């Protein structure tokens, strides 16, 4: 009934059936090709350069990491057949496969491993891996398939990082020969696909690499259509222009799921939605920070924008992972917020002024959550000027230390280790944290070097709690991935939300 009135409002024929998706294309659907609608483009083809979470699945088509993850996020062999971390965590020995070739035909050797994780960083290339692998002082290459990483201080999470953001192996000789600019135009990796075409901001076309060392993908051709606007993505999957898409509003996802040919999924993943905050400017006063956090009704956010599927968080870790605290909650308490603000002389009539940044269309309801928070703050006495960024700009500003007082962000942690959350969210010496206070920073730094597992995890737990209590971190919700695909398209679901075309199949 409500449906009909809506249709009448639109003034269009009521009884128009949905035509079969393939009718749009005008030619029979190939069974070995797939098109996915993706919210953003890659920021260049150098996979070590920028840690953009949404670009990782695309990079994983072209490149490989030394270690990989299974759907349960356990570490499994990748380019490396075996690995061994020393008990003091000061060295990591890796044994590489001997049957891997790059797209240009050259064989993968430990020289490429050394180049990726040490030489190019030492040469001063502007890459984010210089951060994640800053502890590396040398990599020994006793043979073409063996490499030993030597760290200046204990690196207990090194194996996990070999499977994480940006740790893709790039070809040393090719990169040195053609230079970085040309590499960006004609990238070469070891991955299951090679780059066939890239129209920046529009689409990426990849062709299967038949000489791939690993399991051969079913899809011969993958097209990534870059569609920034969530409603355009919804329209694209609805009309059959794409076969799978992600990051649409939850309501749209639910509606699309009712279409006979489509399947909708709401997958909680290892990302967390949070507010990253500064320790200076408008947020120098702890009262304001804590008030801002108390004022946010996370349950209401989850209900309004995620159909209650997103779990509210009080610590920057997801439930069920090490580092989580079952017995700690940070309450939603607007009265407490007002009280704290009045202690510093602020009220709704005389609000504290800050600035806030958010993405728009990058993850479901991001812009809506930001605006809702601004509204919640208004009622207690904080006035926030909102600004929209995209991921690339977020990274630029973060690196330059110029993010505003609060930034809404969806922080990825594909490996699930607490170090990859707080260790980066709150480390002042890293370019991922607008929080530059050294007191907390020193504690964070210390936890990176603890070799004993139990001690390390306990340390992170305590740190997470303290960070929230002093208002250094405002976790909001566990991310929920919204995904809509054709019913006859199967893919392997990962706990960290990876969507990998090399695991896709038509059923």
């Amino acid at each position, binding site marked *: 009934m409500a449906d009909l009135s809506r249709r009448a409002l*639109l003034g269009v024929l009521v009884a128009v059936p949905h035509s079969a998706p393939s009718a749009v294309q005008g030619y029979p659907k190939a069974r070995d090709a797939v098109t996915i609608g993706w919210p953003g483009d890659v920021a260049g083809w150098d996979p070590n350069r920028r840690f953009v979470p949404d670009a990782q699945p695309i990079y994983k088509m072209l490149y490989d990491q030394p270690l990989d993850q299974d759907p349960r996020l356990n570490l499994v062999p990748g380019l490396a057949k075996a690995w061994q971390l020393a008990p003091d965590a000061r060295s990591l020995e890796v044994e590489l496969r001997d049957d891997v070739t790059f797209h240009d035909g050259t064989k993968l050797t430990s020289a490429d491993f050394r180049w990726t994780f040490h030489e190019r960083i030492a040469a001063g290339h502007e890459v984010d891996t210089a951060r994640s692998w800053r502890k590396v002082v040398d990599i020994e290459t006793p043979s073409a398939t063996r490499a030993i990483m030597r760290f200046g201080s204990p690196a207990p999470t090194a194996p996990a990082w070999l499977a994480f953001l940006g740790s893709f192996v790039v070809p040393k000789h090719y990169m040195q020969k053609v230079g970085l600019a040309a590499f960006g135009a004609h990238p070469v990796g070891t991955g299951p696909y090679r780059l066939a075409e890239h129209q920046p901001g529009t689409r990426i076309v990849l062709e299967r690499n038949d000489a791939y060392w690993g399991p051969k993908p079913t899809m011969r051709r993958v097209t990534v259509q870059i569609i920034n*606007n969530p409603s355009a993505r919804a329209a694209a999957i609805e009309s059959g222009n794409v076969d799978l898409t992600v990051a649409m*509003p939850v309501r749209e996802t639910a509606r699309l799921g009712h279409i006979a040919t489509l399947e909708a999924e709401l997958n909680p993943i290892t990302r967390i939605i949070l507010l990253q905050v500064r320790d200076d400017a408008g947020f120098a006063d702890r009262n304001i920070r804590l008030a801002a956090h108390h004022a946010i009704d996370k349950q*209401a956010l989850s209900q*309004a924008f995620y159909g209650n599927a997103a779990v509210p968080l009080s610590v920057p870790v997801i439930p069920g992972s090490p580092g989580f605290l079952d017995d700690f909650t940070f309450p939603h308490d607007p009265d407490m917020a007002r009280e704290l603000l009045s202690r510093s002389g602020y009220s709704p009539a005389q609000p504290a002024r800050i600035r806030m940044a958010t993405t728009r269309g990058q993850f479901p309801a991001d812009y*809506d959550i930001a605006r*809702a928070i601004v*509204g919640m703050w208004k009622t207690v006495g904080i006035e926030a000027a909102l600004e929209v960024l995209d991921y690339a700009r977020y990274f630029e500003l973060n690196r330059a230390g110029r993010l505003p007082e609060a930034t809404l962000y969806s922080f990825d942690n594909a490996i699930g280790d607490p170090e990859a959350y707080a260790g980066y969210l709150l480390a002042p010496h890293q370019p991922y944290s607008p929080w530059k206070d050294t007191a907390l920073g020193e504690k964070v730094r210390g936890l990176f070097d603890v070799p004993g597992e139990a001690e390390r995890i306990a340390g992170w737990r305590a740190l997470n709690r303290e960070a929230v209590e002093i208002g250094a971190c405002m976790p909001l919700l566990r991310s929920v991935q919204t995904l809509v695909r054709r019913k006859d398209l199967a893919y392997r679901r990962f706990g960290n939300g990876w969507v990998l075309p090399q695991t896709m199949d038509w059923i």
Partner: protein
Amino acid sequence: MTVLRWLRSGRVLAGLLAVALVLALAVLAPAIAPHDPEAQDLTMTLQPAHLGSAYPLGTDALGRCVLSRLLFGARLALSVAIPGALGAMLLGAALAYAAGYLGGRTDRLIGRAVDAVTLFPPLILILILVFALGAGPTNLVLAIVLVDWTRFCRVLRHEVRVVVQRDHVAAARLLGFSHIRTLAIEVVPATLPLLVTLLALEMGIAVVVEAIVSFLGLGVQPDQAAWGQMIADGRTALHQAPANLLAPAAAILVTVAGFNLLGDGLGRKLAARLVEDRA
């Protein structure tokens, strides 16, 4: 009496009604809007339109009243369009009169300025001015004035040149009238129909420019009620609450059509009257 004559034109009547309606709604918005346009209610998001209820046009993704936002959006649109168009007209007309009347070097200089600015597509220039100056309605008005004055200047300059060559203007000068007086009494009235038409049309254009800028999220604060912003947000709400998209779209249509009809009708009436007067 002359006003009544103008109203006999169907176009003028229709246009006037539309514009007057939008203007009234915009002015009265704070009084008649059922809710605060920025008041959120996360338990009432994306409610469809229901005329008798507390939210006659429904709510948006943050639970804000669409009708209230529509009314305040009218306020914003007109507070940009009217000063913007007037400013562009004043600047453009002043320069056109100077160029057409004084001729010679002034004419050539102003002509070159017009040529240079019109080499940019107007919307593009407005966008980068907004980008350079920063967001906000005042900056948008400034941008519109700095770009659209050319539209007035170009057309008027030609017209002024024609008028200036007429006998009555030369006669006025011979009689000893100052330049300003000649302009005011002899030249300006002859170009009035054109001016009025252009002004009304420009207001319509400015409304669209404001909508485009707020659609792109470049011109206004993210929470402000703006038609373009409502349309951008409304795209995702189309299936749950179509009023989110349809209401601001209809509002833009009515406003722009109103200005177009008014400008077109008035222009014709005034031109016809000038011809009558001279006969």
